[in-house]
């Protein structure tokens, strides 16, 4: 995973820009969404027409506060906006409304899980501190066509939460794990959709290195606008190697802003410190300081879902799930809640339910829907459970039938497939297909006695009685044949042992 020489330590801080899941833009009533014709989602405010004024979108502020609550920040009493002034055609007012001094989220932490030694072994957990997160407006998109330039302001004014970490990350693997955990938290709380293919999550990555054990941080570089988790990982690996090479060659690191070419797999210098913009920040006079009432905070606190890893620990420790199934379930809140509804309907075998959900149900859902836009190739995209033909209580019913030996595990697979196809209850399918096991002790006793009496099996009986345990299995075939395969295998085993014993 890491090819950093052991005497160097890499220090990473991330700035993650997330488009919030809101109906309207952050300072205008214009709606926004992906895939519209250029400049279709604009209004006088978005375009910065003379005389227009921003009005803070309450939904965007509340989603930001919700994020703060998810990461355990202390929600500030108030927040305010500042103007960041710079000229570029994608910026309709030539200033961006952002939060410099009083952001909406201060502090907090994100728990991460590093990869374990293998897929079914849990890796190390760590906490990454959040410095702050501020709510700002996205800019439009400038493109060059022939001799001219074209600008599309659909993205301008889309609410953007910039989440800034402390420099707590120490490897590319930790950066990856952080982003996965962050995305899970954002999506599970309904704060953001985080679809990287749609540009809903972009990252700036600060990297420095220092001698292991050193207190002082090295000079950092910032690589901007990374639009996938793999480019963040690759940037960290590339930048770490480059900086070690520079320092070991006796050069120093220049504080600079860099870009990343994902196709070539290499970084490049955008501008150095001397060329840094002077943004001439000042408090926006159009937006008064916003008071965040404790009533609002209390109301939003109720919307905070159970933390990903708290849920995982609960599944493993309280419900007795294997780590692998637990880790799959907790990654998708809707799936986990679906699972819990099934457990509520049949509380005695959570693992049995988990295995069906994490394996069979997920597989069939993914196959029937086709994978939705995945933000990260290593983690399956959330599946849509709204169209799932099986309801949680129905799945519980199937596991219950298996647990009560009404059907065998092999039959359960067949019933599951039918349930997924038709949405019928397991019991109805079992009855319709005549799959119900014969557990009638009286009837089975008769059949067992008849089979034992058959001279054709006398040899196997003798072997069993002589101590060959496995010889008993030779008797089960004929019994199954007599019952068209419906005999309860557990019961047959018991009966055989009783009569032969």
């Amino acid at each position: 995973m890491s090819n950093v020489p052991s005497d160097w330590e890499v220090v990473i801080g991330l700035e993650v820009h997330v488009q919030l899941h809101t109906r309207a833009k952050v300072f205008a009533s214009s709606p926004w969404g992906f895939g519209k014709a250029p400049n279709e989602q604009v209004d006088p405010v978005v375009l910065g027409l003379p005389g227009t004024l921003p009005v803070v979108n309450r939904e965007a502020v509340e989603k930001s506060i919700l994020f703060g609550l998810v990461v355990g920040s202390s929600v500030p009493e108030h927040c305010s906006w500042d103007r960041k002034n710079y000229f570029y055609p994608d910026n309709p007012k030539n200033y961006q409304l952002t939060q410099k001094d009083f952001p909406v989220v201060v502090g907090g932490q994100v728990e991460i899980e590093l990869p374990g030694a293998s897929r079914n072994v849990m890796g190390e957990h760590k906490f990454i501190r959040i410095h702050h997160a501020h709510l700002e407006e996205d800019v439009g998109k400038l493109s060059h066509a022939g001799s001219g330039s074209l600008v599309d302001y659909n993205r301008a004014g889309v609410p953007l939460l910039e989440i800034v970490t402390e420099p707590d990350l120490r490897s590319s693997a930790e950066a990856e794990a952080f982003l996965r955990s962050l995305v899970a938290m954002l999506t599970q709380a309904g704060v953001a959709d985080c679809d990287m293919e749609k540009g809903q999550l972009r990252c700036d990555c600060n990297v420095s290195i220092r001698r292991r054990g050193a207190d002082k941080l090295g000079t950092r570089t910032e690589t901007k606008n990374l639009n996938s988790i793999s480019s963040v990982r690759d940037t960290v690996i590339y930048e770490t190697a480059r900086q070690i090479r520079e320092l070991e060659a006796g050069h120093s690191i220049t504080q600079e802003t860099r870009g990343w070419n994902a196709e070539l797999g290499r970084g490049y210098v955008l501008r150095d410190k001397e060329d840094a913009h002077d943004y001439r920040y000042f408090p926006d006079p159009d937006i008064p300081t916003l008071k965040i009432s404790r009533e609002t905070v209390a109301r939003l606190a109720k919307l905070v879902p159970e933390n990903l890893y708290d849920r995982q620990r609960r599944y493993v420790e309280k419900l007795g799930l294997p780590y692998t199934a637990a880790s799959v379930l907790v990654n998708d809140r809707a799936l986990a809640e679906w699972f819990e509804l099934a457990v509520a309907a049949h509380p005695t075998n959570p693992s049995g339910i988990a295995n069906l959900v994490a394996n069979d149900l997920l597989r069939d859902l993914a196959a029937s829907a086709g994978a939705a836009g995945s933000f990260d190739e290593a983690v399956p995209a959330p599946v849509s459970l709204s169209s799932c033909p099986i309801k949680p209580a129905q799945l519980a019913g199937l596991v219950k039938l298996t647990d009560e030996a009404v059907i065998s595990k092999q039959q359960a697979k067949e019933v599951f497939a039918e349930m997924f196809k038709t949405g019928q209850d397991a019991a109805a399918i079992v009855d319709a297909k005549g799959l119900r096991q014969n557990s009638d002790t009286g009837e089975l006793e008769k059949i067992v006695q008849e089979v034992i009496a058959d001279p054709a099996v006398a040899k196997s009986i003798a072997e069993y009685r002589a101590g060959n345990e496995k010889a008993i299995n030779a008797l089960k075939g004929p019994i199954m044949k007599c019952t068209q395969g419906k005999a309860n295998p557990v019961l047959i085993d018991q009966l055989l042992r009783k009569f032969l014993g």
Partner: protein
Amino acid sequence: MADALHTLSAAELGRRLAAGSLTSRDLCEALIARYQVINDKVGAFTHLDQADVLAQAAASDVRRKAGQGRGPLEGIPVAIKDNIAVKGQPLTCSSKMLASLVSPYDSHVAERLRAAGAILYGRLNMDEFAMGSSTENSAIRKTFNPWDLARIPGGSSGGSAAALAAGLVPLSLGSDTGGSIRQPASHCGVVGLKPTYGLISRFGLVAFASSLDQIGPMARSIEDCELLLNALASADARDMTCFGPSDRALTPAGDAKKLRIGIPKGFLGKGVAPEVAAAVNAAIEFYRAQGCAISEVELPSADLAVPTYYVVATAEASSNLGRYDGVRYGHRSASAGTPVEMMTASRSEGFGPEVKRRILLGTFVLSAGYADAYYVRALRARAKIRAEYLAALAGVDVLLTPTVPTPAFKVGEKASDPLQLYLEDIFTIPANLAGLPAISVPCGKSGHLPVGFHLVGAPLSEAKLLAAGRLFEAAHGFAHQQATL
């Protein structure tokens, strides 16, 4: 009959319209006829869509006839400064930068006027982007003081004041960032009110300095000024700095003869012309005679007002005017290279010298390494000035000073001396810095040139300012005054 209509107040026009002795169409035709003769001399209007005005007037007459009149302004023309958006009308801010811009939307005040039945009557000249005190910074035309066509009308709402003094319209809207309603009102002998910051929505007012800008009513009498103010003031969710419905109750006027009037110490000494000082002193004596308590108040930080203003206002302006870059609308340079080169060239060509001067100053005071010494200090000074004014206004109801130290100067006289020009606003700026309501009331003449006094009150004390003005106006002959042209 028709030639006298331009001399009538909005209130009297309203009465005649209501009585059925006058139609809005007749009124507008009379005003258009006068416009055709007078406007080229005065230069108050930059644009008048006559067909649109007559269509609005005809619609108003139909409404009234059907018993569906909308309010006290039904059928009455209101002329609008060219930095306030009216759908389908030019919104040039008297700048080459926006010379071709037609607003695709209505400002909040335009909506309010339409809802009150008013006729949205033409666009008024101004200093470019409201930066100036003489309307000489207009890139479109010059405006002259109707009382003396060799002199400036004041600014930046020079067109708004001149149109009233010339009898071109009974009511007008101005905007005031440091005195831009009150100073031209004083120079043109009309009433101009800058409301409490937040009383009138800024939605649709092209921003100069957002924390100081307010739209306000201008008229030839206190009664008309109040009529227009009442139509404009309402909550608006599109301006977060505009008071909500629960926070906008005006303080009752009370008995004007019992007002406590504070005279700021030293204000009548600072370069105030003797005729101006005499007129203002006479007004003070009038109020004393009426029974008002007159006392001297201390405003020790008043000297900081002008420098503080020119830091705060230019800082905000440098950012507010950033959007004029030729990309989406407005002037685009023909010498286009890269997008950024095109933006630079468009701004260099589109802005006039005073606007450029203020953008440069504002950019400087916000830049890294200087912001603490200038912008941040100015914010501290502003807070101090506001605190001193509020403290003074805890002991008195209004503060009375001249509106402007000297009467209107000659066109071109101060064109090469911006610093001298900035002192025109020395008495009016503090009300903007402190967010307080203020009014200029005509109180005399310096020779043939009008002089006004200035009242500042506590937040939401507009009714007191108007009551004080009404008391003075009723006993003097300055209401409804117009220049002879």
